[in-house]
């Protein structure tokens, strides 16, 4: 019950903060007025202990007891100010997020810049239940936090409100602020299982010879999201730490059209998944391909940019623009 109450309280506070702070740009400096601070449960326990010490000192009239009590009380107060200052003046910037396929996690990169000459420790980022590993920011330096957000559906993932917080030093207090920047990332439809052959543009039997391992090795290119793992050049990765994709020169590289109307038997989302698979298969086989969706179509072309554009059309198909 208390958890539910705390949750509602936090939602209310977040809503209040949003109205109060207004929306943020993609880069934001954390000013004094938007940093909130409260003791943590551990801090509350620490405060209780200091109070118990005070009572004990009063009872025993113990001067040295008073001294330690006030030293620890002062330490708590000082820690509160340091905790607050640990966030103050931090420059947050949305440093991008690469599109992913539904079901995978988006990695939002948030860069934190520290323009002061004091280091910032243990800066945490939270988006709902998802947190980033805490980062330290050196004086005059920048560090990026990586916020992993799992996805289920295609479309946009919007990092509409995330909390930047710190409990340094000593976890006695938690200082935080909510950031409402329009940081978003595209989620492509989850590609269907491979197997269904690509349609051929000529409208023939549709059993265009798929790429196979016996085709001639044509070279390597940078791997991109969506590339099949069995084509990654793992030996090259071991050597160079770069993910490269083996490319093969297929015999029949005739262009094809990835068409919505070719799959009337599938439900819309399943259709989009299959179309995404086809786009990937075609790109993998270095075949030129076009995309045809109700209401829009992309001409036949080739290359990673074209693939990305096609996947984006699929991701945003009939998604209300936000």
């Amino acid at each position, binding site marked *: 019950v208390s958890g539910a109450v705390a949750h509602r309280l936090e939602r209310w506070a977040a809503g209040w903060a949003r109205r109060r702070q207004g929306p943020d740009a993609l880069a934001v400096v954390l000013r004094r007025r938007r940093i909130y601070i409260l003791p943590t449960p551990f801090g509350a326990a620490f405060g209780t202990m200091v109070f118990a*010490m005070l009572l004990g000192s009063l009872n025993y009239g113990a001067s040295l007891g008073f001294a330690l009590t006030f030293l620890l009380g002062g330490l708590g107060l000082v820690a509160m100010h340091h905790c607050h200052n640990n966030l103050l003046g931090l420059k947050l910037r949305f440093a991008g997020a690469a599109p992913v396929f539904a079901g995978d996690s988006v990695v939002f990169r948030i860069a934190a810049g520290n*323009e002061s000459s004091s280091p910032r420790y243990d800066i945490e980022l939270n988006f709902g239940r998802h947190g980033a590993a805490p980062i330290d920011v050196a004086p005059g330096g920048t560090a990026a936090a990586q916020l992993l957000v799992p996805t289920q559906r295609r479309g946009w993932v919007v990092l509409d409100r995330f909390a930047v917080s710190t409990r340094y030093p000593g976890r006695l207090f938690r200082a935080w602020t909510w950031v409402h920047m329009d940081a978003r990332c595209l989620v492509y439809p989850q590609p269907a299982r491979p197997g269904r052959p690509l349609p051929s543009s000529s409208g023939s039997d549709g059993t265009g010879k798929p790429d196979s391992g016996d085709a001639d090795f044509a070279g390597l290119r940078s791997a991109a999201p969506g590339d099949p793992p069995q084509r990654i050049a793992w030996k090259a990765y071991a050597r160079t730490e770069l993910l490269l994709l083996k490319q093969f020169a297929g015999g029949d590289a005739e262009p094809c059209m990835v068409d919505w109307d070719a799959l009337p038997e599938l439900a819309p989302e399943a259709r989009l998944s299959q179309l995404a698979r086809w786009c990937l298969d075609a790109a993998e086989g270095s075949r030129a391909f076009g995309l045809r969706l109700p209401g829009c179509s992309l001409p036949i072309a080739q290359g990673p940019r074209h693939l990305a554009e096609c996947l984006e059309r699929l991701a945003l198909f009939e998604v209300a623009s936000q």
Partner: protein
Amino acid sequence: MTGAALPLRSLRAAPRSPPADVSRLLWTAGIVAGASLPQCLKLAIWIPGLLAAAIAWRLAAAMHGWRLPRRWLRLGLAFAVFCAVLAQFGTINGVEAGSALLVVMMALKFLESQNQRDQLVLIMISYFVMFASLLTERSPFAVGYLLAMVWIATVGLLQLGRHGPLLTARATAALAGRLLLQALPIMLLLFVLFPRLPGPLWGVPSSPSSATSGLSDSMSPGDITNLGLSDEVAFRVEFGSRTPDPSQLYWRGPALSRFDGKTWTVSQGIRLGQNVAETIEHRGEPFEYRMMLEPNGRNWAFALEMPASWSGPRNLVMNSDYQLGLFYGAPRVSRLDYRATSYATYSAREPLTESQRVAFRRLPPDSSPRTRALVASWLDDDPTPSAIIERGMDYLRAQEFFYTLTPPPLGEQPVDEFLFETREGFCEHYASAFAVMMRAAGLPARVVLGYQGGELNRLSRYYIVRQADAHAWTEVWLEDRGWLRVDPVSAVAPGRVSLSSWRTSFDFGRGGRAQTTLAGANWLREAALLWDAANYYWNAWVIGYGPDVQRALLDLLGFEASRTERASILLILVVAVTLATSLALSVYLAWRYRPRAGADPAARCFAAFCRRLRRRNVPPRAPSEGPAAYAARAATTLPHAAAEIKAVVESYLRARYEPDADRSALAELRARIAAFRPA
């Protein structure tokens, strides 16, 4: 599919370092052990043993990946050690039993600690254990040790409170030191200003095992006792403007008026009351002083004869034997600090009741027959009380009496044997014998215990009174004068009374010669006095800082007010001062954390380099211009230095932006800039 969808960066990320479990546990173990060390030195050996075993086992478990004890085992252990503590102390109340319980529970908590929360809780318990130590530890050494441990515990709090990997111990120690230094002004102000209470909030349980030393409440001359032979400090006294003569330094303790022929014990039917002191007439100039009494295991206090008024705990009162004490409480185990005013000239002549008159003259019928016969002969000569007193003193003076600390033992009639046979003894023998003579003459008389003299610490003007200064003297009741102090030792060994200090070093041997056995060099003695002075001020102003000193301080600051008003003034000051220091801290930290161009040392170096180029007519770098583009432009202006400029910019980019750049990259940049000297 997941493999393909994973972003490149996460696949390429360096493998995470293994969990720093052991190093976090080591931090915790060190702090737990260090914080409980002062307690462990005092507690029964099984408690530190348990703690050490728990720490050793837990560390071994962390290193070998053993399972932690199950829940029922932990509960069983907790119950067992609780019972053990209860069995040892008979209570869980009080500082000693409470500390023992705290230490054993800390040991069990350490045994089961597995996450950050447990470790932080252990740090908190460590703070509390140190607090418990400070309730009883007073020596500057112990306090210094505990202060260092508080620092280390704070380092641990910062380290273990961290989410990320641990920082270096050095950096964290510096940070913890800074936090504590910033907390120090708050501590000092609150220490001075927080209103102190004159009495406890709840009962202060006495500790049965606390050592008692000092005067006993009975006296049997003839039994060898070690009474007052130690150098241990009984109390320290700081006089105000006037200081009494050494011969006036009689520190009054309990009066002994019951005598069974061998042993003197405290009077029966002692009354308590605030008005006892008012029955005494004081004359002359008062002596004002502050007493700092070491714990004596009793509820006695001492005062210069004869106290007229005093301030201190509310239960510090005078009984009808004119003795000060905390008679409404348990024996005192902590230091007592009070101020008093006494007069050397007084007359205490509240009329005796008939039963008192009988009690103060009672001698067991068959005791001291020879003494009685002697006194009877004096009575025949001159029965006036003053003449009897004079005869008694003359007797001790005229005969061969010796003052010695090693008198022969006495038998069944100690007073007769002492007066007529051995004639060797110390203050107890003389006081007892003299009181018996007076009682034999029909005069009410009693023995008073206390201290006489004291050593003046010349370095800081206060007296140290040691157990070795313990003394006994006689009081005789005269109808017209009331109680009159007669010190028979002054008849035998006047030096004992007037020299007073270093009594243990003087032994008035046969013939009354003082044999000084003063040993040790002078500087040693000076050093000892200096150390005692440091101790004294530590005790007077830190340990003894209480309601009285606080009131004196407030009076000095011009706040003269009643007790409740004082408390509210102080509380207001406490709040104001806390807010003010908090504000000051906030301003200071905002300044420390202010944004600075060139907070990065590499950027600072490069900015200096750009300034140098500017002096060589390179137009300044535009805000949007990258370092490489700027370098190319500078190279066109200074073509002969193009290679050097390029090298500097390369070092700069490496020092500033390479992810694994370290100090050597910065050093290289500095070296290149220093070497840059275009013609």
